[in-house]
């Protein structure tokens, strides 16, 4: 699975989940994903809870997530929780703590138990 495929899956899960749509109804953010090893930029955008993803840079990102592309792919496809690489120092997130927490919650609610 490529990073883009993982992100598209993540986006689909977010947008189809009524609870996540409700949680994110007031959340508009631009998130830049920066694979350290490939430099192949990707992005996630939440527009009042409607999430989209793509390849390339995003203007004025609110959050920057850096890790090896395989880790980013694993996190956004649900094969790994964000906590594991974050605690190991293999996932660097720059942004507001609330946004970091929310992204963690989204992935856990999609891929958790």
């Amino acid at each position, binding site marked *: 699975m490529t990073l883009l495929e993982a992100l598209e899956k993540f986006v689909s899960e977010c947008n189809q989940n009524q609870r996540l749509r409700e949680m994110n109804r007031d959340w508009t953010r631009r998130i830049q994903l920066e694979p350290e090893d490939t430099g192949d930029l990707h992005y996630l955008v939440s527009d009042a809870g409607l999430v989209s993803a793509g390849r390339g840079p995003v203007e004025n990102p609110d959050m920057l997530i850096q890790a090896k592309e395989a880790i980013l792919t694993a996190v956004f496809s649900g094969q790994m929780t964000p906590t594991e690489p974050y*605690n190991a120092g293999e996932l660097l997130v720059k942004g507001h703590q609330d946004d970091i927490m929310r992204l963690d919650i989204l992935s856990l*609610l999609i891929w958790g138990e």
Partner: protein
Amino acid sequence: MKTVVSVSLGSRTRDHEATLSLLGETVRLRRQGTDGDLDRAAALIRSLDGGVDAIGLGGIDRYLVVRGRRYEIQDAARLAESAKLTPVVDGSGLKDTWERSLIESLHREGAIAAGQRVLMVSSMDRFGMAEAFERLGYSLVAGDLIFASHIHYPIRTTAELEELAAKLLPSWVKLPFHQLYPVGEAQVADADPKFREYFDAADIIAGDFHYIRRYLPDALAGKVVITNTTTPEDVALLQARGVSLLVTTTPVVDGRSFGTNVIEAALVAVSGVLPGEPDWPEVVARAGLQGTKRWLSAHPQGEIS
């Protein structure tokens, strides 16, 4: 005389000492804050190990018990394991038993009534209380995502709370604790009333006092607050905001209600029984714990303790 010490991740400005009588024994209680410093808390526990009868973990839960499933917070486990001789407890054994009973008791005596709207600022650490409210017919809003994560999503049933806990807690318990809960100076920061709408919509506000205090709105006229770890200054603050009835789940000693960890540690010290052991519910029942009700504004029933 038994001695217990509560080693807290909270602010040192809330340190205090008192004595309490439990099961016919006098217990000296001491609370020592460490301003959110885990290393200092661990060092303090090591220094107390073997020299006191029980240690309470304050400002941090070791276990979150949700519908019988127990989640262990790793930072708290590391702290507890700093003691090799003295039992270390976190209050979760009391929250799951005694706080449930307290709500039933308040309901029976009419201090609160079915149909009232309850805001629990945090419920995953007080699932027994949330279950009691729901079972007795109260309209529940669990604010775990609102107050801990600043997501405007009220949780309205314990079933959803249980589902969310199962998805979130296995990962969250591994996070540094300060990401999950205000510690140290964050506990004494000025109140930010940004979640006022949830307070306004509730008749009863329950749960962790640090969350209540941190997001306290200007006006809480006529509302009931059910919490613990309040100081005389906290009581004055709630009175100034118009709170009608303050219920603290643990006894008030010298004007201060202690954390559940302190009372649990005192019970362990005098009984020798640990939470989770078969005799624990009997020890809690025999202790005859009393919450404390204080009418903070004029009420026909007057002062009740």
